[in-house]
């Protein structure tokens, strides 16, 4: 059996750990730059606030309804997520971290009663970390996702361990809500009368294979209870890495935008070094405000090939600025710029180029020491001069909560 453990309204729940007064109140967390709603308490959902809604459109409404608003504090959420995943490892040696707030836990070899065990997982995470979770247990990953959804509507635990329960669950799950079935496929299936997951399991396998490839077939098998998607223990290095932020306010000055692009490129280089890989391509994109009523929307991007795959700060910055200069048009008001690196390979296997020195050990050492200093003393304590200091492009985080678990000067205060 496989359990899917998933934090309820995760980001909001993280804020509530240090702010119990928010229990029972409408709370939302906004995306980077305070752009859109990305997490809602049940009370906020009940007020009709939708996932992904732009915050500015709902500002007045949220004020009138006393909704507490937070900027996203990923440092805090990441720390609490780590604690949750480590705690899960006490329940099984086989834990696959699927996202910041969910993990598959293999219950193979666990002899305890499944229902009791699932309740114990739920209670332990809640007590030890303060995060409420839902636990769905079934024979396959796809079914455990369905069980998890049902769990959240009930007391937080759902075990699908009989044919009757399985059929009930499948009949009560829309095919569009099944893990791995995209919106396009859902539409297509609906058009031929397949509405629920149960309908899908009755569909002819040959038809599925022809129209939805082997992935669709795998979903059918999983829904019937045959595991086809294995647990993945080792995180695969990411195939591409992106760093992108909207500006605090719209910008038209190429120098200030260069600072932002440089910093994003450095962030990508840091992520590459952390997973011990290098990138061959770098893509820079820039666009104006898509919500603006007065200006036209302009989106441009440029991909450059590095002479040698790299994870070095100054290499990536050099290419990123070069790309930006090609894209930049004066007089436009830009809202967002981003850097994506791809063509990612292992640090140790890099093809040299005829014209650039292979063994730039010295510059790599500089990057490594920069990482160490920044990890110890805080982000961007040591940086390249081009990253600059202009506050205009920096993230807007007006409602940021303290970094309770990672900074000594931001600890939770308790009264004695």
């Amino acid at each position, binding site marked *: 059996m496989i359990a899917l453990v998933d934090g309820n309204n995760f980001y909001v729940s993280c804020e509530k750990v240090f702010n119990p007064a928010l229990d029972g109140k409408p709370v939302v967390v906004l995306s980077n730059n305070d752009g859109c709603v990305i997490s809602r308490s049940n009370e906020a959902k009940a007020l009709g606030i939708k996932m992904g809604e732009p915050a500015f459109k709902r500002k007045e409404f949220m004020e009138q309804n006393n909704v507490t608003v937070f900027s996203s504090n990923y440092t805090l959420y990441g720390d609490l997520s780590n604690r949750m995943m*480590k705690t899960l490892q006490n329940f099984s040696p086989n834990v696959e971290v699927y996202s910041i707030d969910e993990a598959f836990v293999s219950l193979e070899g666990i002899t305890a009663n499944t229902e009791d065990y699932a309740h114990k997982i739920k209670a332990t995470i809640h007590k*030890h970390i303060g995060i409420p979770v839902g636990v769905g247990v079934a024979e396959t990953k796809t079914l455990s996702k369905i069980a998890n959804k049902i769990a959240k509507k009930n007391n937080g635990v759902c075990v699908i361990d009989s044919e009757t329960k399985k059929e009930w669950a499948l009949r009560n799950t829309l095919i569009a809500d099944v893990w791995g079935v995209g919106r396009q496929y859902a539409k297509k299936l609906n058009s031929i009368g397949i509405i629920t997951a149960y309908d899908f399991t009755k569909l002819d396998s040959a038809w599925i294979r022809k129209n939805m490839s082997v992935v669709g077939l795998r979903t059918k098998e999983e829904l019937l209870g045959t595991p086809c998607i294995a647990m993945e223990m080792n995180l695969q290095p990411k195939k591409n890495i992106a760093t992108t932020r909207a500006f605090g306010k719209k910008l038209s000055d190429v120098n200030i935008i260069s600072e932002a692009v440089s910093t994003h490129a450095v962030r990508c280089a840091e992520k590459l070094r952390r997973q011990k890989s290098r990138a061959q391509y770098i893509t820079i994109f820039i666009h104006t405000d898509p919500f603006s009523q007065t200006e036209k929307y302009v989106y441009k991007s440029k991909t450059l090939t590095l002479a040698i795959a790299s994870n070095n700060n100054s290499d990536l910055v050099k290419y990123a600025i070069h790309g930006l200069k090609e894209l930049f048009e004066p007089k436009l008001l830009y809202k967002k710029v981003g850097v994506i690196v791809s063509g990612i390979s292992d640090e140790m296997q890099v093809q040299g180029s005829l014209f650039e020195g292979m063994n730039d050990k010295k510059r790599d050492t500089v990057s490594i020491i920069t990482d160490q200093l920044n990890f110890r003393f805080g982000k961007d304590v040591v940086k390249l001069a081009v990253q600059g200091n202009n506050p205009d492009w920096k993230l807007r985080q007006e409602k940021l909560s303290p970094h309770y678990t990672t900074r000594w000067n931001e600890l939770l*205060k308790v009264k004695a």
Partner: protein
Amino acid sequence: MSNIKPETTIKFINPATVNADYTAKLEGFVKAGFPSPANDYIEKELNFRELFLRNESATFFVEVSGSSMIDAGIYDGDILVVDKSLNPCHNSILVCYIDGEFTVKRVQKIDSALYLIPDNKKFKPIKIEEHSDLRLWGVVTFAIHKFR
């Protein structure tokens, strides 16, 4: 070569094994000469994490303000180590959330009523009324006090 004493050993160390662990690193410095007699007795250095973090994932640090707990050795500005995984016992020192704020107190049950007991004679015990919203946040395991 003639001045190398017969008991001297020269160890060839594969570069890959140097720095692999603490022992290998030490041995790496002994190019020639008598190896340190302590080599066989090296233990892991003391580590504060080990002492304070009995259950790392459930342990949080918080900062104290106020003087109601000085007789328990908890002073203004101290850092408390709080373990959320522990169950409170009678007279445990707890971090609680009550009526809109976090507080650190002893918790006692007297004649089926709960009391928050300060550890300073200048403060009075607080009886938990039925309507008040008391939540246990965690059990205090250590107080860290800075002297200079």
